[in-house]
């Protein structure tokens, strides 16, 4: 069924379709309408779940961590400083291997206060052991929420479904609402390997030593380092599991594509723009315009940011003259985090092959600064003529 709603509603409908049973959230712009919707579904009885109006984001994720440990399918959502306030819990959730799905409605972080979109919030959580997926439109938001539950529960790793605040969250666009029966066929009920249970008592997340230690059965159990290693190992194999998720989803819902990246007019392109989220769709318009000028450009959206699909990305960019990375966040003191990750992937897979593209980094839309399509086109055009700057360039900055 097609509907026209905003991005937050798309996310809320996805959560409802996935039959999450415990939802905890604390209001923060621009996430608020998403969780308001969920409270409506729960209060009206449309959705059978507990909606917990917590007193902070730290507690929002605490509720999810505990409920998930007790066997519930959980959901929360936040933005900006809310995500930063959660940070301790974010790390805890992945270390405890809980399949939590959380929407991050991307927003600039303070100081100073700013409620508008950029991606500094979720990028700053890059190294927390969560899977991060970025969405470019409403269809991707609702589909990604559904795929995220399947994937998270398969690999026991939490997932952030990230989408641009306001630009997607508050913008009304058409999308297809998946049928409940199909979602049920895609996503079985949550059955964790272990849930807290008085008949099978266990003490979870206790202090774990630097070295391995014998358990009560006389067998060797891992140490802290092994637990962390296994998280890394499973994150790397998540890439394959994500491909399986995508395939299953396509079989049932009839849509899908590459789970990691979303290329547009890249095949014969000499220059490829790379980004995450809604900006990559906006850049399709720039690409079309430059193609009309005879410049061979394409754009590639990175959907999976963690685990980073380095191999897929590197080979997709093999032999291109240049890669132009547009980012709404920065690793302050250096450059955009995606640009750094891309360079690393390119070097790893293409160094010495003669097929190593140059990389230009642009920073755009920080704190909701309007990204004019004309400015993006201009920047992209300039970058195709040769590397503009070693340092990242800020589009639309007024100094």
């Amino acid at each position, binding site marked *: 069924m097609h509907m026209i709603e905003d991005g937050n509603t798309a996310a809320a409908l996805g959560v409802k379709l996935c039959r999450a049973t415990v939802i905890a959230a604390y209001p923060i712009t621009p996430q608020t309408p998403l969780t308001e919707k969920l409270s409506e579904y729960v209060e009206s009885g449309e959705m059978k779940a507990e909606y917990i109006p917590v007193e902070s984001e730290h507690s929002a994720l605490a509720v999810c961590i505990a409920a998930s440990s007790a066997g519930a399918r959980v959901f929360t959502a936040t933005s900006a400083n809310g995500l930063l306030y959660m940070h301790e819990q974010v790390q805890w959730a992945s*270390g405890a291997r809980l399949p939590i799905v959380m929407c991050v409605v991307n927003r600039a972080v303070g100081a100073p206060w700013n409620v508008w979109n950029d991606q500094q919030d979720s990028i700053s959580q890059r190294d927390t052991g969560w899977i991060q997926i970025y969405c470019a439109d409403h269809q991707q938001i609702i589909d990604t929420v559904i795929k995220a539950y399947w994937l998270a529960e398969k690999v026991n790793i939490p997932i952030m479904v990230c989408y641009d605040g306001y630009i997607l969250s508050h913008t009304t666009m058409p999308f297809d609402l998946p049928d409940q029966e199909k979602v049920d066929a895609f996503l079985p009920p949550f059955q964790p390997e272990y849930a807290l249970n008085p008949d099978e008592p266990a*003490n979870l997340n206790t202090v774990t030593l630097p070295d391995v230690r014998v358990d009560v059965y006389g*067998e060797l159990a891992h140490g802290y380092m092994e637990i962390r290693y296994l*998280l890394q190992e499973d994150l790397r194999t998540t890439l394959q599991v994500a491909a399986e998720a995508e395939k299953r989803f396509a079989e049932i819902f009839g849509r899908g594509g590459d789970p990691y990246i979303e290329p547009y007019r890249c095949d014969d392109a000499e220059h490829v723009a790379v980004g995450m989220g809604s900006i990559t769709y906006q850049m399709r318009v720039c690409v079309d315009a430059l193609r009309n000028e005879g410049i061979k450009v394409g754009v590639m959206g990175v959907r999976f940011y963690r685990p980073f699909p380095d191999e897929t990305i590197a080979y997709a960019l093999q032999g291109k003259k240049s890669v132009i990375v547009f980012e709404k966040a920065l690793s302050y003191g250096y450059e955009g985090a995606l640009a750094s990750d891309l360079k690393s992937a390119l070097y790893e897979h293409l160094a010495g092959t003669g097929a190593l593209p140059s990389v230009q980094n642009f920073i755009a839309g920080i704190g909701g600064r309007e990204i004019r399509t004309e400015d993006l086109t201009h920047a992209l055009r300039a970058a195709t003529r040769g590397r503009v700057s070693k340092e990242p360039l800020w589009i639309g900055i007024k100094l």
Partner: protein
Amino acid sequence: MGTRSYKRKTSHSEPGPGDGGRTGSWRVERPVLDQSLCIPCKRNKEACYICWLFCPEIVISRTIPPTFDLEYCKGCGICAEECPTKAITMVDEAHFAEKEKDKE
């Protein structure tokens, strides 16, 4: 060296005694019961058990006579201090070390 067949990928602890090791080795003094003063012993029926109630380590049995699990008893001496008839005395472990040595 480890093993890749670790049962779980999380910190998942299961109940068992002696997480702190054989904590009896922490002891400096050992509780010794004088049955002639102990209330349950004297009456030969369940009574008193203040030592059992207050034992932080759960190493005193609720039996006649009460016994001490010396494998885990840390020798805090709360039982001796709380015993209403002073039936429990804390004795220097060195005393037993000598005795055990004599046995060998």
